């Protein structure tokens, strides 16, 4: 998968590296600000109250 992406990035090596950084940042932002906040309430790890409140 990563090889396929790398092969399909246009431009010279430096340009490809920049694009990779942008892609990685975009994926991290998507996970941190959209996916994780949505997933987290469904996990029991952050429950701090008693009696189901």
């Amino acid at each position, binding site marked *: 998968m990563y090889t396929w992406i790398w092969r399909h990035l246009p431009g010279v090596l430096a340009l490809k590296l920049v694009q990779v950084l942008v892609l990685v940042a975009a994926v991290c932002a998507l996970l*941190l600000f959209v996916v994780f906040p949505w997933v987290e309430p469904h996990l029991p*790890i952050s429950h*701090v109250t008693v009696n*189901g*409140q």
Partner: protein
Amino acid sequence: MSDGHYGRHAAPPAGAPLGMAVVEQPAPQPAPPARSRTSGGDAVRLVLRGIGQTLVTAGLVVLLFVVYEVWVTNLFAHAAQAKVHTALENEWATGQDPLSLPGGSQNGIPIGTGIANIYIPRLGRDFAFTVVQGTGADSLEKGPGHYLGTALPGQVGDFAMAGHRVGKGEPFLNLDHLKPGDSVIIETKQSWFVYRVEGDAKTGNISAKDAHGVPGREVVYPDDGNVILPVPDNPGLAPGPNDHYMTMTTCHPKFTATQRMVVHAQLVTSMTVPRTGSKMPDSISALYNAAGV
């Protein structure tokens, strides 16, 4: 690799031991022939590489989730906490007190808004949080939350709060550092309240129980709602005129939600002092010196 490198090993000095370097370096040969794209070995390699990349990616995502939990949620929570803190200070400055509503009812306090400030000298001079009304997920992202229906600060009964231990501002991260007799200071618009953590201050036994059997600290299962009763752990017992408890709950052990750590305290001082900005009265700030911070 330079030609010189190859050259050295291609012709080892006579009598040199037959080392690995010699074995490692075969005679220069032409580039290996291009692999056939359709060979079975390539298909296996492709599948294995796919599985490997998926697993590595999954591992990185999980690592990122840990970063999110212990760091990113704090950024959000600190911003939210600063907001409710400023809002409460502004309310106080304009003469409004969210705790003195008509009829003394707390039903009118909007969920998720600040009601009081909490300070714990043992946890450092910078430990200061605005307590918000309610213990829903939205409230607890802003700061420690006041269990609906439990007493308000200074009232008879149990002023009970819940707070996150890891991430989300982690107000109760170090709740286990509290020792018997430690002060927990609650600031409202009208008053300063000082609660002292239960337990035996002489022996330092935090599990020691008071006359009602309330310990300084206990670990319970999440369904044990008795710890926030008006007299904690005493179902059916009505609080006497001097039973002003305070209870804090958080998750236990850290990073899990298997159990709850609960710390109980009892009111020792309540002072009604005119607010002078956000400055603590001397007798309150003296508690920090007493705690050695």
